[in-house]
């Protein structure tokens, strides 16, 4: 498919979907609502906020209480009735993040709001054939995707995309695209292989995952946590921009008439003072550096235990947006070096 045709596809899809895509904002990019396809910047490096905002909004009303009648009005039907959303230009790492969130919000108890939004969303993925500034996807095996997209675009020579179809939703989208997309030619197949070769050569590798759990088991008392504790301000930026951090707070907010109330949830982060604070008061993680450490342990050791994969997709957002310049990649690398020997660094 020609690049210019993608814009036409987006234009056509706008009748049916709320379309979101990467657009530039000052020194960063954001996934923003698209009313003019020309605003989409498919060459973006990385967005500041990940896609989680489309599935667990930073603040959402879960239900409303009527205090006069003592009744509950669930917001789930409203969520289900939202216009379908189409996300354009989603990098592989972010698709992996969604696959991880699927595990968290599924399981024994399903989070119906998340699932409803997930079902209501169509994703056009975008294969990165050149590395972004802070990412390290290849180190954590998230540079390739087998599932989680509806269409997947690989940029190939001649300002074109090589398109994979990943689901019936993707097929459905193609009916809108109709004449915008041709059957891949031999030349196209060849160009695809060239792009992929280029990709594998250009993406660097800096960690190895095989021993990451042992490393973290051993590193609990490592002096690095004291050092990071001094640098980290517990501002939470890392967790907020992280595509797999999902902690939230729940609170009831009364109407001014005091006759009704919303139960809302909003993002929180385990870095905040009150996160593990209970009535009493007793704080289970009262020490700021303990909270920073917890974030690392939960994401790496904990997620591996619970879901078999680490909760880091190598997107590099927390590295880019940490005001103190703390890098999860460097921390993991340093610990590996100290506890199990230096990982072999391959590639570009």
């Amino acid at each position, binding site marked *: 498919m020609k690049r210019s045709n993608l814009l036409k596809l987006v234009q056509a899809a706008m009748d049916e979907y709320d379309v979101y895509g990467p657009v530039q904002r000052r020194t960063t990019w954001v996934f923003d609502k698209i009313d003019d396809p020309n605003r989409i910047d498919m060459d973006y490096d990385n967005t500041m906020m990940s896609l989680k905002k489309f599935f667990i909004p930073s603040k959402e009303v879960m239900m409303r209480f009527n205090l006069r009648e003592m009744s509950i009005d669930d917001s789930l039907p409203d969520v289900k009735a939202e216009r379908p959303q189409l996300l354009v230009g989603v990098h592989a790492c972010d698709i992996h993040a969604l696959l991880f969130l699927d595990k968290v919000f599924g399981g024994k108890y399903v*989070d119906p709001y998340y699932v409803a939004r997930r079902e209501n969303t169509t994703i056009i993925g975008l294969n990165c054939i050149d590395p972004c500034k802070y990412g390290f996807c290849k180190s954590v095996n998230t540079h390739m995707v087998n599932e989680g997209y509806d269409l997947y675009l690989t940029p190939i020579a001649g300002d074109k995309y090589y398109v994979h179809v990943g689901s019936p939703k993707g097929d459905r989208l193609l009916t809108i695209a109709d004449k915008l997309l041709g059957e891949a030619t031999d030349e196209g197949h060849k160009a695809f292989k060239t792009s992929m070769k280029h990709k594998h050569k250009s993406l660097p590798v800096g960690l190895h995952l095989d021993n990451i759990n042992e490393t973290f088991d051993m590193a609990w008392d490592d002096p690095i946590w004291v050092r990071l504790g001094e640098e980290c301000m517990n501002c939470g930026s890392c967790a907020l921009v992280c595509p797999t951090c999902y902690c939230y707070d729940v609170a009831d907010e009364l109407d001014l008439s005091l006759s009704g109330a919303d139960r809302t949830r909003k993002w929180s982060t385990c870095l905040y003072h009150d*996160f593990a604070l209970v*009535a009493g008061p007793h704080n289970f993680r009262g020490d700021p550096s303990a909270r920073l450490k917890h974030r690392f342990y939960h994401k790496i050791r904990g997620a591996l235990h619970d879901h078999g994969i680490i909760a880091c997709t190598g997107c590099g957002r927390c590295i880019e947006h940490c005001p103190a310049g703390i890098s999860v990649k460097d921390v993991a690398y340093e610990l590996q070096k100290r506890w199990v020997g230096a990982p072999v660094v391959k590639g570009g």
Partner: protein
Amino acid sequence: MVQITLTRTNEYLPDLAKLVKKTKLTEMESLFEFEFLDNNVRKYFTYSPGQFVQVSIFGIGEAPFSVSSTPTRPGNLELGIRQTGDVTDAIHNLNVGNVVGIRGPYGNGFPIDKLCGKNLLFIAGGIGMVPLRSVINYVVDKRDDYGKVTIFYGACLPDERVFVDELENVWPNAADVEMHQTVDECHETWQGNVGVVTCLFDVCKVASENTVAMICGPPVMYKFVVQDLMKLGFKGDDILLSLERKMQCGVGKCAHCQIGHKLTCIDGPVFTFSEVQRLQEAI
């Protein structure tokens, strides 16, 4: 135990329940008895000892509370609640007939079936008795299924003890139950033991053989109790701890109750000491 669970489309939506009875336990704690409004819920709502429910006061918030009644006595849900913050204040201000929201039960609870045939040692501190009361009464009701029962209970002051009637009159008189109490501070009306709960190990010799210990109390208590139990020869798997953490969702999503890689609400609140031993920051 077979549980018929109610199917819900939205796990977060509470069921309505009304307060039917309120009994003062101490200055700070009361026992609240709730009855679900919906017939179906009333019929199918079951739980096992050690599980908890999430109680909503609409407009104020939601908080987790262990169930204090026992499923062996079908009827209403009893919760023993200490007044310490917004939700608990509001619960204490409820009048009989007022409606709240309740969802659950959540958490693993005590592995009550696996404990059949064992001797049981209960160690509770303060309102840690709330979840243990559920197990104790369960065992008392199914007395033949379990071995010897020993109960250690510690509170700061005599009048800070909860369920005094059961402590003084019911459990000591049940078959093959040994009951010991202590208070932290000496008090003129108190003739019994004085000292923290671990001092009861000197008063009553417990054998670790074929015995499982169940512990619930304030955060500081666990470490010392476990040390003493280990000295007595208890194995990690035979020590069960009911832990408390901050909770918002109760169903493993909000991540507040995370201890290392475990979620208190799903993997717990009851853990064996073996599990906890390998978990940093747990006790």
